[in-house]
């Protein structure tokens, strides 16, 4: 849920601002008595929207705005102040505030300003954020992936005769937009190639994405004992082979621990025959967030950089969590 931080040294003013917030707006409201308290709350993520007074003890509104800019805190600030000099308004806007409301504030005006800056819609965009993975769940996925990686690394090392630097898996819930950014990076960046492969089984489905930097191809060829010239077509084939091995070992490791079985679809090279942008655009409506496990591999003694991202769909989470529940019990 979106959180709103109201910062004013006067209790009456804080209460009044809180009362003026739109009735049907579902938000968490937090309070701060001065700038320092406000900054601390912002750092704790309590305040995607900040309603800020200017004249306060300890740290005033101007200083607070400066600090927000300096620390690059992500918040939308609306100044609510009794100081109605034009200069005051100009200064706060210059310091990054979105708008300026004169005290005493009324509900109608506040709503109008919030609407004007699309703050009310923020609630929807930001809504999934507090749904972050609970620590224990994240830990669980991380551990499962770790074990899977250990097995996969062992297999790889034996198959290729190299030492695999085992990555620490990064487990997160990510938004469509983040995935979009990641994939368009692959799309625009000619230095990388990517393969994606769908998998599903027992009510869990998802996609694995393997991104290999092009500079790795030379060394991958060495490892795979390919003596021919590495042309475009061979690069693709190598990418496909590396992706199959990484995705296959990792998925089967995870599936084994969950006592499941994943079926893998045929892999597809991204960006080469499809525009990545279009691909994701087409799917935009169907999901909002997804569980992502990111792994970044390196091979000792070689310049091989390979990222593996395993994405589970939103509706797979329930099944996954229940499969993992035995691990979460004490």
């Amino acid at each position, binding site marked *: 849920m979106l959180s709103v931080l109201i910062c004013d040294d006067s209790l009456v003013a804080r209460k009044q601002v809180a009362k003026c917030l739109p009735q049907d707006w579902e938000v968490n409201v937090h309070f701060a008595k001065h700038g320092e308290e406000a900054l601390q709350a912002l750092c704790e993520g309590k305040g995607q929207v900040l309603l800020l007074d200017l004249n306060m003890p300890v740290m005033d509104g101007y200083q607070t705005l400066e600090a927000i800019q300096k620390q690059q805190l992500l918040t939308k600030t609306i100044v609510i102040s009794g100081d109605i000099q034009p200069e005051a308004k100009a200064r706060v806007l210059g310091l990054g505030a979105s708008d300026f409301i004169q005290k005493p504030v009324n509900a109608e005006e506040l709503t109008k300003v919030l609407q004007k800056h699309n703050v009310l819609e923020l609630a929807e965009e930001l809504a999934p954020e507090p749904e972050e993975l609970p620590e224990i769940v994240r830990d669980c996925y991380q551990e499962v992936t770790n074990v899977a990686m250990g097995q996969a690394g062992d*297999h*790889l090392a*034996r*198959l290729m005769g190299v030492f695999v630097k085992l990555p620490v898996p990064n487990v997160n819930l990510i938004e469509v937009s983040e995935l979009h950014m990641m994939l368009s990076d692959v799309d625009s960046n000619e230095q990388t190639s990517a393969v994606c492969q769908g998998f599903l089984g027992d009510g869990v489905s998802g996609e694995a994405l393997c991104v290999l930097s092009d500079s790795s191809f030379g060394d991958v060829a060495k490892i*795979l*004992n*390919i003596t021919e010239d590495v042309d475009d*077509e061979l690069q*693709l*084939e190598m990418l*496909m*082979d590396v992706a*199959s*091995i990484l*995705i*296959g*070992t990792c998925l*089967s490791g995870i599936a084994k621990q969950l006592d499941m079985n994943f079926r*893998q679809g*045929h*892999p*597809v*090279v991204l960006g*080469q*025959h499809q525009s990545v942008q279009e691909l994701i655009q087409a799917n935009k409506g169907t999901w909002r967030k997804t569980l992502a496990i990111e792994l970044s591999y390196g091979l000792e003694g070689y310049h091989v950089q390979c990222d593996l991202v395993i994405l589970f769909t939103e509706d797979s989470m329930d099944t996954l969590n229940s499969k993992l529940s035995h691990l979460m019990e004490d």
Partner: protein
Amino acid sequence: MSNNALDEILEFHWMMDMLQTVDVGIVVFDRDYNLKVWNGFMEAHSGLLPSDVRDKSLFSLFPDIKEDWFRKKTKPVFELRTRAFITWEQRPYLFKFRNYRPITGTEPFMYQNVAFSALVSATGTVDNVCMMVYDMSDAATAKKQLLALQVEQSEKNEKA
């Protein structure tokens, strides 16, 4: 013979029939690449009977398949039990078969996707690998036509 055992044999029979008639090529080979299973799809398209290929080496039957490359490709399947894939975009075909529709089809040969998967034996080891060959000619033709249209369109746009 009890009824139960008879039922099982009957069931086995129609299951084999299914493998035989499914419109996907199914081939099983062992660690020495000797063929163990060659289903109806493969038989029909290659013109080789199961009895012709049984226990013969894949490479001797199809000299066009490069042995080094194929061994490399399938090694992880035997060793890691992961799947391996060949897509028509990289290699139009593994087996040079004629187009399924020799009259109305536009391509002279069959585009293929190939997937390899490990078969775990009763003792828990991987002694055989199953290779599945899919006919991708229609998808390939459609994609190529689409690409050609796109090129044509962009050329038109440049002229205009």
